[in-house]
């Protein structure tokens, strides 16, 4: 007898240390159902899937609470291998294919058909010969099932990206008794027609009785194919509904929806911001940053503005500042206070009055083994030749000036440390971030770009950094671009917020725009032109 549910998640909770990432999550998936799981980055989607697959990261951090049931039976997989044996398959966002193997070999990998040989009779099954004919036949069958007409003999390396996704699906459905398929952001890298085709394939598979969990942030697709939608937010299932009972706006609202707590007081908005001269003019900027590709962004940012750039991870928002600073190959026009930035010249933006606080503070932002004071002063030394003492023949670093300045900064930004000579690597995340900010401020920039300034830091440091950004704008008239995944934070201090989706600006919104607008823009459902 068919069980009523293929997958049941019952009261699943999980915490990493003190951080509760899943709170009492329950849902179930019926055979032949496409069940959509939507949510922002960090909502808990990946953790949920890690639990389902028995990933070691879950076991290593103390397991989880609650039950996962497969076909009505309790399942607690020790490893992804066990999960696969039990009939769960996964189609990844990044392809897990071997480029040098043929399509058929990739589809049959780990489950090759073999025929016995002399050697295998003596030494065991591992030495059996590959039965290529059977493998090709199976592969062909799997490909036909999903309606893909590709030659199973070609190597994967040469295939277009869209095809690789289908090879991956074919591999999963070739498994003998596949019951449940998880699609993790499968359409992220596909073109529109490819995506449409993939959705068709999902429906075909579902019609065969396979249960499908569809993880995505593209709400349009969800509305088209899903039978039920669960919205995950901050580790909780806030709602489970049927697409016909709701609409895309409502789902978007649920996904983003939280009360905007004003983290800082930003009532002192400079007057005439609308008519202020343009400080940053970005025209058709393309940046080739792996994982954060920017595909033609155009923006005008006014002097004295705090301009937010938001969007989901991997959509390209991080690529924008990194391109401007010349850290990744970029093309397009960027003018800052009327001066064009030459991407070919290293550090050109720095010399034109831009300072950058990188999202990767440990990798790019800091010299972890050096002292706080050296980190703070270094940029100014390298870029502006400040903090040096002239000894006639040569100029040496002025320890006295550096120390003095560092002490000021430590006081100004409340950097908690044993002293300016403490190694930056031994500071907490929030204090490291403050050092990064101090280093940028030491350049006395006219334009300050902060990328993910609040990632992984405590609430106190968050508040202080954001307050300081507001103060900088009010007191020194610094123009600020803040790139962040935290919509709440963007909305609490920015004057305007550009939402980046798929490498381009989806929409520019005011901070008090409705939640649904933000949700829709982020999920790429409303890719309008730039205002």
């Amino acid at each position, binding site marked *: 007898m068919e069980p009523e549910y293929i997958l049941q998640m019952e009261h699943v909770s999980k915490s990493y240390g003190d951080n509760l990432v899943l709170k009492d999550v329950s849902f179930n998936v019926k055979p032949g159902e496409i069940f959509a799981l939507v949510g922002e980055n960090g909502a808990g989607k990946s953790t949920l899937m890690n639990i389902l697959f028995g990933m070691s990261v879950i076991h290593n951090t103390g397991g989880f609470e609650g039950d996962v049931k497969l076909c009505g039976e309790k399942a607690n997989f020790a490893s992804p291998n066990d999960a696969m044996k039990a009939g769960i398959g996964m189609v990844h966002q990044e392809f897990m294919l071997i480029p040098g193997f043929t399509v058929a070999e990739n589809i049959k990998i780990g489950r090759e058909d073999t025929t016995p040989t002399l050697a295998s009779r003596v030494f065991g099954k591992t030495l059996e010969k590959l039965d290529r004919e059977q493998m090709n036949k199976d592969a062909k069958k799997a490909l036909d099932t999903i309606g893909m007409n590709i030659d199973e003999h070609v190597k994967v390396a040469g295939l277009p990206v869209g095809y690789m996704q289908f090879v991956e699906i074919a591999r999963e459905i070739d498994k003998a008794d596949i019951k449940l398929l998880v699609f993790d952001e499968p359409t992220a890298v596909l073109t529109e027609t490819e995506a449409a085709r993939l959705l068709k394939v999902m429906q075909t598979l579902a019609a065969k009785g396979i249960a499908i969990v569809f993880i995505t942030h593209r709400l349009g697709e969800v509305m088209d194919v899903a039978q039920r939608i669960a919205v995950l937010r901050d580790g909780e299932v806030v709602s489970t509904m049927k697409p016909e009972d709701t609409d895309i706006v409502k789902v978007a609202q649920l996904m983003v929806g939280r009360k905007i707590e004003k983290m800082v007081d930003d009532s002192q908005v400079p007057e005439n911001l609308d008519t202020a001269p343009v400080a940053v003019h970005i025209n058709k900027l393309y940046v080739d940053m792996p994982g954060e590709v920017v595909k033609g962004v155009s923006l005008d940012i006014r002097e004295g503005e705090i301009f937010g750039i938001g969007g989901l991870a991997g959509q390209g928002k991080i690529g924008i500042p990194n391109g401007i*600073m*010349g*850290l990744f190959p970029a093309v397009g026009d960027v003018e800052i206070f009327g001066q064009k930035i030459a991407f070919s010249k*290293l*550090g*050109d933006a*720095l*010399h034109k009055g831009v300072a*950058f606080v*990188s999202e990767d503070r440990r*990798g*790019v*932002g*800091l*010299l*972890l*083994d*050096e002292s706080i004071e*050296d980190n703070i002063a*270094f*940029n100014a*030394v*390298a*870029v502006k*030749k400040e903090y*040096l003492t002239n000894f006639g023949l*040569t*100029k*040496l*670093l002025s320890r006295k000036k550096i120390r003095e300045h560092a002490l000021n900064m430590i006081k100004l930004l409340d950097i908690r440390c044993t002293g300016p000579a403490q190694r930056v690597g031994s500071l907490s995340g929030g204090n490291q971030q403050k050092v990064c900010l101090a280093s940028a401020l030491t350049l006395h920039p006219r334009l300050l770009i902060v990328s993910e300034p609040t990632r992984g830091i405590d609430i106190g440091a968050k508040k202080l950094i954001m307050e300081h950004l507001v103060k900088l704008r009010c007191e020194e008239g610094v123009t600020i671009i803040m790139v962040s995944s935290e919509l709440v934070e963007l909305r609490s201090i920015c004057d305007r917020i550009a939402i980046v989706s798929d490498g381009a600006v989806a929409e520019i919104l005011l901070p008090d725009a409705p939640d649904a607008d933000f949700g829709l823009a982020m999920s790429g459902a409303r890719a309008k032109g730039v205002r």
Partner: protein
Amino acid sequence: MGATSIKKTIKNFGLPRIIIFSFFVLLMITAGIINMDVQSLMGDVIRRWGMYGILVLAMVPGIQSGIGPNFGVTIGIVGGLLGALISVELRSNDFFAAYASNPTLVAMMSILVALVLAVIISSVFGILYGMLLNRVKGSEMTVSTYVGFSVVALMNIMWLILPFRSQTSIWPIAQEGLRNTISLEADFSNVFNNLLGFYIGRTYIPTGLLLMFFLLCVLVWLFTKSRIGAMMAAAGTNPIYAKASGINVNRMRILGTTISTALGGVGIVMYAQSFGFLQLYNAPQMMGFSCVASILIGGASIRKARIFNVLLGTFLFHGIMAVALPVANNLIPEGNLSEILRIIISNGIILYALSKSKEEGK
């Protein structure tokens, strides 16, 4: 001083250095017990300290600029040898005849010429070598080792065909090709060692040699405190950080390699004047290894090095070499044991230092 602060001091100094220092002391005591001349042994230790010091110092700019320990310092050594050979050639052509009345002055002038030429030739080599290293990022240690070997092989041919004619340099019968070892007796042998040198008991202090060593240490230290030096160190420790600060990482690496190579050139000239001979052909082949071992023993890592590591490391490594061999020979006088021991000890220390290099580095 409480137990914790003692522990901290030990930790800062590093266990490897404590072990090696104890070994050094043990050797000295053994030497005393078997009635060897400890005072003159100590003189040997100090002489070797100054003699090898600059070559070890050459490791610092390399490590700081991110190319790691410069096994290819051999390139600088070859450049220095060329400089010294040209100086010898000039002397035999009566280039320094104007100062003939004062032999010390002639020696001084000839070593200065040798040093200047060494710096120039080695710098040119260093720039090319730096450009090569920029193409093999990530495997500098292996590549530089083999570049060092290749240069030695190449120069083995060059020593035979270069048109040097000085009678002290070439084979006397064939009248062509440079000798294996060239005496500097008529040139600048020991000129710095004897400068202001004095005895404490039977321990000779080669003041000039040490002063030159310390002077170069100070210069390199000043360089690290300059803007360019700080930029170079940043490029070495975190290339992406440096790039974000608008620093051309490749150029900084070339700069570091060039300084390292030039110091290698200076180092070998100072070494030669103290030794009294120029050693050509395969002699420089393994010198890079002892330099790397010295600085690692001194507490540097393959990412981080300070002048203190140079001073301490050279003293320990070459101190042990200077004492261990005579002691061992004295204890077991048979055959060519000393040569075998030299190889075991020096390679053992290199191995030990390399195995420790990841975790160390303060």
